[in-house]
């Protein structure tokens, strides 16, 4: 590509694009640097700080959000690719001044300590429960033809992409189990 130090510097405009997508069911339209990730668009442009930057490389899960209902690592998604799409962040998991059952279970089970991975855990768990409802198997599902039984081993496997250095794992599993049981 062009843009080496000896070539003429391109303008900001040539590196930017207009993009429109929904965030937490509200339409948002902005002009973004083409290099801006969804994570940075949320945090630096929309003031939605819930999604966290833990590694910026898709290795920790702290930035997990829901894109058209499916969990993605928002640090690996370029925002300009999202025209017409729908993003749900931790801020959109429940109505204003409300807690979703999953969020309430996280508090009740003490499923976090420092809280930094928590928004990603919550979005991941929400996406994961939908995947189970759709009958998607995981690496530990024995019978690929039957609807998955949400055992603790299934929860652990399906939540393995979200690291928690405080290691709230047993309590995260308990919170997800409790939420799944009362759905």
């Amino acid at each position: 590509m062009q843009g080496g130090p000896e070539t003429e510097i391109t303008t900001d405009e040539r590196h930017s694009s207009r993009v429109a997508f929904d965030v937490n069911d509200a339409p948002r339209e902005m002009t973004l640097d083409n290099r801006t990730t969804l994570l940075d668009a949320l945090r630096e442009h929309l003031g939605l700080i819930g999604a966290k930057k833990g590694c910026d490389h898709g290795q920790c899960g702290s930035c997990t959000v829901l894109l058209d209902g499916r969990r993605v690592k928002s640090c690996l998604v370029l925002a300009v690719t999202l025209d017409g799409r729908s993003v749900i962040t931790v801020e959109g998991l429940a109505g204003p001044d409300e807690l979703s059952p999953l969020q309430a279970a996280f508090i009740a089970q003490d499923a976090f300590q420092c809280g930094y991975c928590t928004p990603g855990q919550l979005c991941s768990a929400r996406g994961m429960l939908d995947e189970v409802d759709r009958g998607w198997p995981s690496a530990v599902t024995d019978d690929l033809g039957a609807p998955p039984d949400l055992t603790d081993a299934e929860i652990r496997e399906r939540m393995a992409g979200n690291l928690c250095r405080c290691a709230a794992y047993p309590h995260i599993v308990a919170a997800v189990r409790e939420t799944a049981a009362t759905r």
Partner: protein
Amino acid sequence: MSAGAVGRAYPRLEGREKVTGTARYAVEYPVDGVTYGWAVPSAVVRGRITRVDPAQALASPGVLAVVHHGNAPRLAPGPEPDLWLLQEPTVHYRGQFIAVVVATSLEAAREGARLVRIDYDAGPHSTVLTDDHPGLYKPDHINPSYPTDTAEGDFDAGYAAAPVRVDVTYRTPAYHNNPMEPHATTAQWHDGRLLVHDSNQGASSVRATLAELFELPRESVRVVTQHVGGGFGSKGYAKAAVVLAALAARHVDRPVRLALTRQQLFGPIGYRTPTIQRVRLAADADGRLTAICHDAISQTSTMREFAEQTAVYTRSMYAAPHRRTTHRLVRLDVPTPFWMRAPGECPGAYALESAMDELAVAVGIDPVELRIRNDTEVDPDQGRPFTSRNLVACLREGAQRFGWADRDPAPRSRRDGHWLVGSGVAGSSYPARARPCSATATARPDGSFLVRINVTDIGTGARTAMWQVAADALGVPPERVAISIGDSDLPTAPVAGGSMGTASWSWAVIRACQALRGKLPEGGSPDRDVSAEADTSDEVGGQPTLPRYAYGAQFAEVRVDATTGEVRLNRMLGVFAAGQVVNPTTARSQLIGGMTMGLSMALHEEGVLDERYGDWVNHDLATYHITGCADVESIEAYWLDERDGELNPAGVKGIGEIGIVGAAAAIANAVHHATGVRIRDLPIRLDKLVGVSELA
């Protein structure tokens, strides 16, 4: 205090903010005109910067400045050479921050950092710790102020004369703290005053360090630390991010957000040193220890001495007439090692508690019984009785809960399909310390109270615990109490580290609340705000020196694939005696967290250094493995009801670190029991056990 809030389970006060994404961390505060800093690391290990060419970076859209030793604001050459950043062309280790690019966007800053051209004169380097390194030396003292070596009796003679001897060497690699939130800062200068929102474990000490570095009165520096995404020791002191952000903000005269990248957390902010530990144990035929020697080797940097207190655990854990501990250090061309959860005790207990297991096998005694047999009521190091020592009670309670009695002591005696199954045990101990602290308490006419103290809640539940302590000290329901923490403008408090936060902070909270009660009208609220403050410096300083320790017993059951050598943890169970537990909910989480980090140490974590580059090559979370959700099948933590009147007013010992102490040894011992193979260098990965059915 037993009938009140202390000892009762409460959810975290900030829980709602944390699950709704509204809790603000260091680089999440709205700031007008904010810019972005991106740190540039050195590409050579040792040498001198001969030229910094910022032209290409400055020509890149959005880049405002390239700050480096040639143009950075000056810092006072303080006692912390690690923080004397961008002041000189010298490079001490690979990855040392040598420039900061400031830009109007994150993308521009990152691109700018890539475009800065730096030339070096590089020299030869030494970055690998060995037990015969020519630079080995004896430090004057070890972290924080222990004597380097100790000796009682005549170890050599006692060892030579014993009928049973164990002489083993254990190795642990570099470990990297890796809190989920990187070290991050938003820095702003207004009229010569510095305001930082910073991710750290103690805003009071960060303020003091910044004031010193920037030659400002402390009142001109404010450090706000409301929420911290973990630290595990790595944020226990001012680190590079806050200094770089403050330098950059002063240089461009605009606010700067600067977060280190994940890759930049492997080195410049500290790590746990690799260790080489030789342990020699001698015992009589009944397993009673007669001689103990623990020789520990670790590394430090060329900038500053940090001497991990690896063998101090051995000084007080088990008794024997002949005892010796030594620490030797090498200065390498590496970043300075620093605190990581239970510095000293963590790697040291791995070695000693593994050696105790080897002794149990050698003597033919159950490893729980061996530890009970070598218990002592008198601290072998200080020669005084422990204020309380419930190691044996933890071992017995743990053995009962774990189902230890059914264990066949013979290695490789259990099989479950293609899995070899085994169990192991280890002791655990951590000092119970306190530091001076201050706090204020205010009563309001409406019947409410406000307690102010610069506690840092790095995820421990400190905010909630101090709220509970304050309620009891005031004699009111906690709902009437508000607590204000995480701001250096609040009364000064020590760091959240060393398992001494709760002891130190609660001491000041209780004294402030007691003083306030003395000023209030009997049974009523004042007609105006009434405040009282407390500073525990005299009281803490006047406390007699006694051996104060928390204890624990760690039990683990593993399964090892007989063909591949893959190790999985079936279950782990710890029982601890740590004085008063303030909040069972947050305490359990913290103990489980420590135990899990011990699992991570035993089976997963390893900083792999390539001598050619003088740096860790697996510097991200894809290649530096930490325990994940799928690795934790069952980890349980329990504690004994323990009362110790020689500690502090709240009677707490601290629980942040003891969970990791001994955890890796329990797992390693379980691996030996399962396989008959003793792995003495962590982590125990399948490459060391592959084909285990043919080994042993």
